[in-house]
């Protein structure tokens, strides 16, 4: 097994990492690059806590071989947080008390970010479908759904506060 250099775009910066084959992107983000917003809840794709966006699509980074993102754009909770303040979606999570321990929060926000860029005014069923792969053990989910709905009610600009990233639409 020889290591390989993998280059990808992380938010607005280009990064190159040296990885063993099949190293999960989550390990690279957390251990090599210090982007610890992608949490590990299960390490087997079952909880959504490690969700990042790859070319705008939500992916569980614990199961994603780093080689697979070569040349692609990866976005995390860190890269999606505005330089000052928070995005409308993040503010909605605060306003609706859509968090308690906070461990699952980055994953939910990344999934909701992708949803709102694909479907700016999602039906409740679309929201439930989008977050179906994310586990929250504190809130009971209702405040999370309410936060995504609240963020979606704003018309005009992208609800996640950024205009870039929805390259798949």
């Amino acid at each position: 097994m020889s290591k390989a250099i993998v280059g990808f775009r992380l938010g607005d910066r280009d990064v190159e990492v040296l990885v063993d084959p099949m190293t999960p992107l989550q390990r690279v983000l957390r251990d090599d690059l210090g982007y610890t917003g992608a949490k590990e809840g299960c390490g087997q794709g079952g909880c959504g806590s490690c969700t990042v966006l790859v070319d705008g699509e939500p992916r569980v980074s614990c199961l994603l071989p780093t080689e697979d993102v070569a040349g692609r754009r990866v976005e995390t909770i860190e890269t999606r947080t505005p330089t000052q303040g928070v995005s409308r979606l993040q503010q909605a999570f605060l306003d609706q008390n859509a968090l308690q321990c906070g461990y699952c929060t980055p994953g939910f926000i990344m999934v909701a970010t992708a949803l709102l860029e694909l479907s700016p005014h999602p039906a409740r069923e679309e929201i439930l479908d989008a977050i179906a792969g994310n586990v929250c053990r504190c809130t009971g989910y209702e405040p999370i759904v309410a936060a995504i709905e609240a963020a979606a009610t704003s018309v005009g600009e992208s609800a996640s506060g950024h205009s870039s990233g929805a390259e798949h639409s």
Partner: protein
Amino acid sequence: MKELSTVGTSLGRVDGLSHVTGRSVFATDRRFPDLLHLRVVRSPVPHALIRGVDLSEAETVPGFVRALTHEDVPHNVYTVLSLIGVEPEDEFVLAETRVRYVGEPIVAIVAETERAVREAVARVKLDLEELPAVFDIDAALAPGAPVVTDWGDNLFHFEGGRPCRSVRLGDVEKGFAEADHIVEATYDSKPIEHAPTETTACIAEPHGDGRVTVYTNTQALYFSLDNTSIILDMAPNRLRFVGGTVGGGFGGKVDVIVEPLATLAALKTNRPVKYAFSRSEEMQVSSPRAAWRITLKDGVMADGRIVARQVTSYSNSGAYSRQTPYSMTKHAANASGPYNIPNVSIDVYHVYTNLTPSSAMRGFGVTMGSFAQEVQMDRIAEVTGIDPWRIRLINAYRNGDMRPHRKLAEDATLVETIQAAAELVGVELADDLKSLTSAPRGGGA
């Protein structure tokens, strides 16, 4: 009088902003360039004698650093309740001669990478002689049952060797004799795993001078610090514990599990050591809420007053006591419910089995008791044909009532709370129930 500025307002969490931006620092969000990884070799069977542990193949795994056995642990006893004077200390940090549940730690392995430590753990060969095991309350209490403990039966013994925690008030037999109805039922519950999204974890960072900083997601920072100091036989002022950010706990991160071994490994290797449960370890090994069996026998008058309550409870507590003796006492103190009953008899049994040791979870000891009591209250309503609101209101504690464990009810608000709940859900209570208050019975002050 000054207006209250905070009461009655809805405040955001102080850590909300750092949560939504991913900046909250959880225990394993810290990076150390020379970090080592610790995992534990666990018993694959529920009950066995340990004949031998062969590390030779594990030691050949590239990246293997060292193993820790029970001989490396200065005070190899799990001590969580010794700090509040509850004995016996019935659990080892690393097993010595016997394992009593699936997942019991036997040997710890430290390696350079997560992959290497998993590989090395998989290559440890255990020579175990399996023993018969018991899993449920009936089997554990049956004559001739396999014995889980070291003292000959499967019960925890309370002060004076008593086999259960007992509370008595008045005379239940007299109460049953006077009663118009006897209502008796048994309530069973299953174990419940907290399943926090963040698994139990810590990183111990040695400073090279015998001091160690431990970053941990424990819910009980000073329990963890004190116990680590006892287990490692080191002065508490050599330990600095950093916590506070917990990715879900619900009581499941109160037991002191990862810190002592990670700290020991850090001292032995003089490098930072991470010990984090995998998801499967979190589900299999971390203490669940105990399974309970609770039998309530009530003597009830035709007008709905409960005049006698006999409670017999069994907690299926698993292989070791951990914080269960404390929950037995809590259960006994609350087992008759928030009701004024003149004749009460309570016996609570802590039963050992070859299941994962149970421990703290949200109101442990009380929660399952409350479930049983409130289902029982509805059953009493059915038997007597009296409205469930009335049954609760006429029996509810009021100020000055004597509780079975000899505590006077003070600051009682149950009557008012039930009345408010009725109003909220649009239930119109009868006038005599609306006029009830928590004021002492008999018109006292």
